[in-house]
């Protein structure tokens, strides 16, 4: 029986790239996995792992996600109760916070204590959005960062965002980047993890991270 990895489709941006990158990682690992893009509750319910992408504004993404019937209950059951490995990407990661302060104050999933706030680099010459390639600093060891060199001479991840998650508990911050101060790059606890950067667009680093996610046994 093939096992399903589901990318939740709620009309947000670039799902094709995420699907293709995960297929590439699957192929590299020679795993019998099918990468499905879906908004069907019965498909999400059977997923072995769940990926929540997200491009656009926080509130729009939250609304889009919750336009899927019963998605709140499904995620609660699958991710919080059954412990299915969950990866949020970009705004999909930001949605895991308690609240997002982009264009108002909006409720999030509340899985990671913290708020999504504007990036405020201490160097006024730095451009916003934080757009392009940056290296990662590892704040905690994590299975998803295995075989990914971090620090000044490490591999690069592709970022494009103006807001980032400020976590309440330091232990939830897995990795960060430097952009006139610390930028949250990756958060996680238990079976949930999220990246502010786009692994599906981060060439070498991205594919290694996705391979790690597919093998991750939290």
């Amino acid at each position, binding site marked *: 029986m093939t096992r399903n990895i589901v990318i939740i489709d709620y009309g947000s*941006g*670039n*799902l*094709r*790239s995420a699907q*293709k*990158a995960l297929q*590439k990682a699957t192929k590299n690992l020679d795993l019998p996995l099918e990468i499905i893009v879906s908004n069907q509750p019965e498909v999400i319910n059977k997923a072995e792992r769940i990926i929540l992408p997200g*491009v*656009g*504004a926080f509130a729009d993404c939250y609304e889009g996600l919750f336009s899927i019937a019963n998605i709140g209950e499904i995620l609660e059951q699958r991710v919080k109760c059954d412990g299915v490995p969950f990866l949020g990407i970009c*705004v999909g990661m930001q949605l895991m916070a308690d609240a997002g302060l982009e264009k108002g104050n909006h409720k999030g999933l509340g899985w990671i204590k913290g708020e999504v706030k504007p990036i405020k680099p201490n160097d006024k010459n*730095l*451009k*916003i*959005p*934080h*757009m*392009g*390639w*940056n*290296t990662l600093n590892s704040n905690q060891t994590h299975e998803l960062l295995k075989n990914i060199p971090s*620090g*000044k001479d490490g*591999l*690069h991840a*592709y*970022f*494009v*965002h*103006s807001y980032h998650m400020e976590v309440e508990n330091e232990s939830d911050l897995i990795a960060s980047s*430097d*952009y*006139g101060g610390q930028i949250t790059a990756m958060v996680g606890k238990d079976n949930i993890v999220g990246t502010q950067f*786009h692994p*599906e*667009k*981060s*060439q*070498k*680093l*991205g*594919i290694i991270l996705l391979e790690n996610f597919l093998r991750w046994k939290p």
Partner: protein
Amino acid sequence: MTLKTRIIPCLDVMNGRVVKGVNFVDLVDAGDPVEAAIAYDKAGADELCFLDITATHEDRDTIFDIVERTAEHCFMPLTVGGGVRTIEDIRKLLLCGADKVAINSAAVKDPNFINRAADKFGNQCIVVSVDARKTENSEKNKWEIYTHGGRKASGIDALEFAKNMQKRGAGELLVTSMDRDGTKIGFDLELTRTISDAVKIPVIASGGVGNLEHLVEGVKQGHASAVLAASIFHFGTFSIAQAKQYIEKSGIAMRQD
């Protein structure tokens, strides 16, 4: 340790083919945009840009297929421009696998389009193409916005236009000097710097690159966050790796993954 300066090769595509072709030794078909994209991905380009210069509406669908096939092989950021006029155009390109769209004529004709596009898809994927030409006989440096691939003057001041586009939600500006485009004598550094210093969003310098020093100038003197070039890479004059090494030697941090 901060963001690295990006090198963006740009492929002009007409009716599904790369204009003039890409002269890499290992390419089977120099005119195939997907093959060229894969080669640039392997070569370490930081982003790719497709500019669709197809003249007729009927042939526009070819770009969707190209973007789709490119996204199957290249796990890197992809910007697509040319003929982006409606919210539906943007949605289609993003669904095919583009990350950003570059908008030119439609933004000049209807600036509100940028508000709508940014609200819908987020500022991060809306790049506005600022195609500018220096105004003759003006005392101070002034540039005018052109549309339709640089053929039509708009009467709009480039600096005002750039600031307006930022306000409306553009996430990045692709600043092309129409005076320098194709000349190989270097970017219009004053234009690039004037705009870059006046906006908070990143600026990509474009138009006129003939050698690697020009790329360095674009960053150091033009204050650009990224540099875009076409012919010096397509014709194999320099490789992406050579460009990165050269720029890095001048003291600018580059990604060498």
